[in-house]
């Protein structure tokens, strides 16, 4: 089946090349059948990619170690779910996942638009084929996921223990879905510019894909943050790691694009901005894909660097950037705006300012992330940047974004009077101000000024959303006579885009409360404790009750049971452990457990007001002497067994391995029977739960906003009112104007 898989990959590449050529030929010649054939080629490529991916995944699930990447990335002892997900833990498998997702989303986009934007689709189709060709080409030429070996292995190296976490099952597919979905509006943007059809229609057909991309990428980012918080053992959820930043930057630009496209749809403004933004977002998606596998910036996320891939990716990114700039410059006349900003006191102005802030945020993060490379290129000196480099810039900009997320919903389109503004701002401003005052008086929140301001801004934004929902519900209840809950549901259902967006704002504000509180008011304490000893952290007493140990042939684990009290009252009992996985080291049959992969099992007690977090870093130095003696003993035994006749070796080997495993258990038990001091990290983080709650609320809002706008025939109310306005105008002009022959009247057409 490996050969079949490789053949399918080559066929996918050929199909993509055909699709590209057919699309371009159809675009230039006007022969629609070639464009349709090209679209169907994308469906075929998607089918081929899915079959190839299934073949590879089955190889992982069945532990077929004749595949190189299965042997290097999985094992028979890896749980089933992680074996199925291990395919995207490898460079080659992740590239195949990329091809599959790209072709699937492209197929969906082309199916949905098969009867629309006919001059744009061929070029958009060709662009999506270009990306498919690139990634399929990488798989075929440089990173073959179906490479095999003749070693007849019965066991693999296993999955990196850090990746054995439930969030890792979905994090890569979500992030890659976000990246590949972002290439749909990118491709349609390219198509619109090439076809010189830069009105609002290309935005309308790609809006749901931009929103889906934003949603998937956001979920992927949050899953990664959750993994970091509960797995990596450093106590945080965001390290400003280059690969984390590489996902955040296109997400920020996509957020800006989702807002600014509304302005172009409604007012015909910001055409240049939207075109540039969607092209930049697509470029950043490829930059993110490149960073995770390039190794050019140090990152915990990176695959093993491959120089041949680096050259290919840099070439692609260069073509995308230069081509995007050239397209926008070439079409600058067509991109001229049709309307002007009516007033600075308008939702358009707020959206525009918010766009500038979001893009500035992305630009700052880009600059700081790539600064080590830039510095090294210019000065030859390697520098490193960490979280402190980002905070002075990111925090103030994030404050402005939260504030604007509250202002936008309560300002009308086009213009609003000062009196109306005062009326709409009164309640949210009161809530925000009251929050600041209460926090200043009742807590030490002002010790961290920016966090304190963030709480006020978030409270303002939350109050705004609450006010909008309340007023909308009241208005709908008055119109329909329905009870408030029914009216609320009806309100959201009939205005999904608006109120889905408001719910996203609510989620974002909640998340920022969690971020501000947990980063500024976190209490952290390192402690060396023996069993029975305690440490104090933020008013909590954490007592090391007893050590725990677990030893199998696949994993060694040293842990601790911890008892947490506050003011003499029991709060919780937690358990943390540190897992050691054996390395492939035949020279050290015992010691290999202590120089292989390691991972932490965090102790976590979550609550709405605080998280208590603990992790153990056991010191194995006291065991070193015993480990060395164990290595000598087992190595000597294995040497003796190897000198026996072949017929006796299997039985003697089994005995030797049984002795080895017994020695490991005895060694490990010393952590319990003769416990020594271990290092612990304790953290009390206030309100961090609201980061996760906010993310869930925002995702829910995104899902609500995702369905398409209602079809025309359901807007009968607006249509009838509009028709009566037409009649009124005609009557005012002295009677009904004669309808030109062949025209359908607006009323008949709309109803």
């Amino acid at each position, binding site marked *: 089946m490996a050969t079949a898989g490789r053949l399918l990959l080559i066929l996918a590449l050929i199909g993509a090349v055909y699709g590209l050529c057919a699309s371009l030929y159809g675009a230039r010649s*006007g022969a629609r059948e070639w464009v*349709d054939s090209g679209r169907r080629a994308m469906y075929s490529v998607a089918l081929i990619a899915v079959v190839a991916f299934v073949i590879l995944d089955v190889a992982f699930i069945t532990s077929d170690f004749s595949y190189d990447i299965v042997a290097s990335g999985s094992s028979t002892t890896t749980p089933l779910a992680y074996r199925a997900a291990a395919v995207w833990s490898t460079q080659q498998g992740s590239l195949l996942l990329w091809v599959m997702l790209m072709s699937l989303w492209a197929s969906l986009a082309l199916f949905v638009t098969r009867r629309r934007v006919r*001059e744009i689709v061929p070029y958009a189709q060709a662009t999506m084929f270009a990306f498919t060709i690139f990634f399929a080409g990488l798989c075929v030429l440089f990173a073959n996921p179906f490479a095999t070996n003749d070693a007849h292995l019965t066991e693999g190296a296993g999955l990196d223990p850090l990746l054995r976490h439930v969030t890792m099952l979905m994090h890569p597919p979500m992030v890659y879905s976000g990246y590949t979905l972002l290439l749909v509006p990118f491709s349609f943007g390219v198509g619109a510019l090439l076809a010189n059809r830069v009105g609002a229609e290309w935005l309308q057909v790609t809006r749901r894909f931009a929103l889906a991309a934003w949603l998937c990428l956001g979920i992927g980012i949050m899953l990664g943050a959750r993994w970091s918080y509960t797995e990596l053992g450093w106590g945080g959820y965001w390290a400003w790691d280059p690969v984390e930043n590489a996902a955040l930057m296109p997400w920020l630009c996509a957020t800006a694009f989702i807002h600014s496209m509304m302005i172009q749809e409604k007012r015909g403004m910001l055409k240049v901005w939207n075109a540039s933004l969607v092209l930049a977002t697509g470029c950043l998606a490829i930059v993110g894909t490149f960073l995770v596998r390039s190794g050019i910036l140090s990152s915990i996320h990176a695959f093993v660097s491959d120089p041949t891939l680096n050259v290919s990716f840099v070439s692609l990114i260069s073509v995308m950037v230069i081509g995007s700039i050239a397209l926008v410059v070439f079409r600058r006349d067509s991109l001229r705006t049709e309307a002007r900003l009516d007033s600075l006191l308008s939702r358009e102005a707020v959206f525009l300012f918010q766009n500038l802030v979001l893009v500035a945020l992305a630009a700052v993060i880009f600059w700081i992330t790539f600064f080590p490379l830039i510095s090294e290129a210019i000065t030859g000196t390697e520098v490193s940047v960490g979280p402190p480099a980002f905070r002075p810039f990111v925090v103030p900009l994030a404050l402005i974004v939260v504030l604007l997320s509250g202002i936008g919903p309560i300002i009308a389109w086009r213009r609003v009077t000062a009196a109306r503004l005062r009326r709409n701002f009164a309640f949210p401003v009161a809530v925000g101000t009251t929050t600041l005052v209460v926090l200043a008086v009742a807590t030490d929140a002002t010790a961290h000024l920016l966090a304190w301001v963030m709480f006020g801004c978030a409270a303002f934004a939350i109050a705004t959303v609450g006010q909008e929902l309340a007023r909308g519900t009241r208005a709908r209840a008055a119109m329909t006579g329905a009870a408030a809950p029914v009216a609320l549901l009806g309100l959201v259902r009939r205005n999904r885009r608006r109120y889905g967006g408001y719910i996203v704002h609510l989620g974002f504000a909640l998340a920022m409360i969690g971020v501000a509180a947990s980063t500024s008011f976190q209490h952290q304490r390192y402690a060396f404790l023996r069993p029975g000893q305690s440490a104090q952290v933020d008013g909590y007493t954490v007592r090391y009750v007893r050590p725990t140990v677990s030893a199998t042939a696949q994993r060694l684990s040293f842990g601790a049971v911890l008892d947490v009290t506050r003011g003499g009252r029991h709060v919780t009992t937690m358990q943390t452990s540190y897992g050691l996985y054996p390395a492939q080291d035949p020279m050290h049959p015992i010691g290999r457990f202590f120089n292989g992969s390691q991972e932490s099992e965090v102790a976590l007690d979550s609550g709405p007001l605080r998280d208590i977090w603990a992790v153990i870093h056991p010191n194995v130095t006291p065991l070193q002497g015993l480990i060395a003696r164990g290595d000598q003993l087992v190595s000597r035994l294995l040497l003796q067994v190897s000198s026996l006749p072949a017929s006796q070796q299997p039985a003697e080997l089994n005995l030797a391995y049984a002795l080895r495993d017994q020695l490991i258990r005895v060694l490990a038990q010393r952590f319990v029977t003769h416990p020594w001091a271990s290092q612990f990290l304790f953290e009390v983080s206030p309100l961090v739960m609201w980061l996760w709650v906010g993310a869930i609320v925002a995702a829910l809002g995104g899902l609500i906003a995702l369905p398409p706008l209602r079809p025309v025939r359901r807007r009968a109310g607006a249509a009838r009112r509009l028709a009566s306005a037409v009649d009124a105008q005609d009557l005012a002009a002295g009677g009904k104007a004669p309808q030109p022959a062949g025209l359908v009247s607006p009323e008949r057409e709309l109803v």
Partner: protein
Amino acid sequence: MAGYLLVLAVVGFAVYIVSAPLRSARARRRTAPDGLLESVAELEAARDAKYLEITDAELDLRTGKLSPDDHRSLDRALRAEAIEILHRLDAARARAAADER
């Protein structure tokens, strides 16, 4: 063998569906050039966006973001813009229909 059969089946299916538009022997109804259809589509998109603006303005009135006077003047402007789009749409459809004949 199973793998090669699978590849053959997938290839056969792909060739069949990809070539279908090219093989189609049905006399295609002559349609207006894509350029004209595109103009109609763009105007329909503009019309839909204008309806959304009208609906949004009404919602803004009901939720207190716009005063009745502000809403009245905005609504009048939006409807005038919508009527302009509808007239242009009618004209574009007429041109497309005439070109088909």
